């Protein structure tokens, strides 16, 4: 078995893949206890933006929000409401989200739909970090927002914002397709106010193990 393939997880380097995965999960369980602040610093203070920056902003923000490619990160029941939103009745492609990309390389928006368990948390963070900036996260469903029905279970992450910074929270269990669409609208308002002058990364990279 090649060595360079093994990801160095903190101080532990383990050959057996399951032990390595278990070690990473335990590490995350101990470290990820504080929710990461939502990346919306640019919405508070008003910015000194000259004409050139604002016009460039509007063009860039319009182009970004008009064609967001979501990543189909379906975990549980909310995944089927997400697919129903993508289906022909509640057509999400009216808002530019035509295709659901399976790989993070071609996706801009990660819709975390369903219950996130601790075993899936390292995969979620790795996929989030493998997405290219600018990237956004919608936490869909009360399980993603706060662990929901399974809040005090031994294997459920109480809230996705412990792992990745979340931009829009869509409540519901599962949220109706219309509320997911209103979540998408909320994301549009957020993108509209982004500015290159601030030049902050929308999604600060989370804690690297």
């Amino acid at each position, binding site marked *: 078995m090649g060595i360079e393939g093994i990801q160095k997880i903190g101080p532990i380097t383990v050959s057996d893949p399951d032990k390595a995965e278990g070690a990473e999960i335990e590490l995350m369980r101990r470290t990820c206890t504080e929710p990461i602040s939502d990346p919306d610093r640019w919405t508070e203070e008003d910015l000194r933006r000259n004409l050139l920056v604002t016009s460039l902003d509007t063009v860039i923000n319009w182009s970004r929000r008009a064609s967001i490619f979501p990543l189909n990160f379906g975990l549980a029941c909310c995944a089927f409401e997400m697919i129903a939103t993508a289906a022909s009745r509640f057509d999400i492609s009216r808002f530019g989200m035509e295709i659901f990309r399976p*790989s993070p390389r071609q996706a801009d928006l990660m819709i975390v739909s369903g219950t996130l368990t601790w075993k899936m948390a390292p995969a979620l963070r*790795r996929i989030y970090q*493998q997405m*290219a900036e600018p990237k956004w996260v919608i936490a869909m469903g009360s399980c993603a927002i706060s662990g929901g029905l399974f809040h005090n279970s031994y294997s459920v992450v109480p809230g996705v914002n412990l792992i990745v910074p979340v931009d829009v929270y869509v409540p519901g269990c599962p949220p109706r397709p219309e509320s997911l669409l209103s979540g998408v609208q909320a994301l549009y308002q957020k993108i509209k106010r982004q500015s290159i002058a601030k030049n902050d*990364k929308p999604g600060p990279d989370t804690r690297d193990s």
Partner: protein
Amino acid sequence: MLTDYSYVALLLVCAVLFVAVVIGLPIVLRRFRIVPHNPGGLKATTYECGMVTWGETWVQFNFRYYFYALIFLTLDIMVVFLYPWAVQLKELGTSALLSILVVLLVVAIGYIYAWKSKAFEWE
């Protein structure tokens, strides 16, 4: 006569322009930090369904895949010869036809040999 080549020149200019814009634009935007750009970290790791890649990836594959590719290559090169011949068929006359048949015969022998040595069976 010269004007005929003007289209080629125009095409050349468009091509170069297109390539310059497509490659240059991200570099310019990145330099003025309009577009976020931070590679590295976990982003550079290979994506394998959210898991850590494990084990060797430079492994020795079964030979039949290479054999299949070689056969495709032989037939692909044939196309390079067939196209100009087919376009000028009338002027070249039957002598060209015979020479192409010889070339096709040679390739056919190689093809049948590959077929008989079970290159196309996947089991």
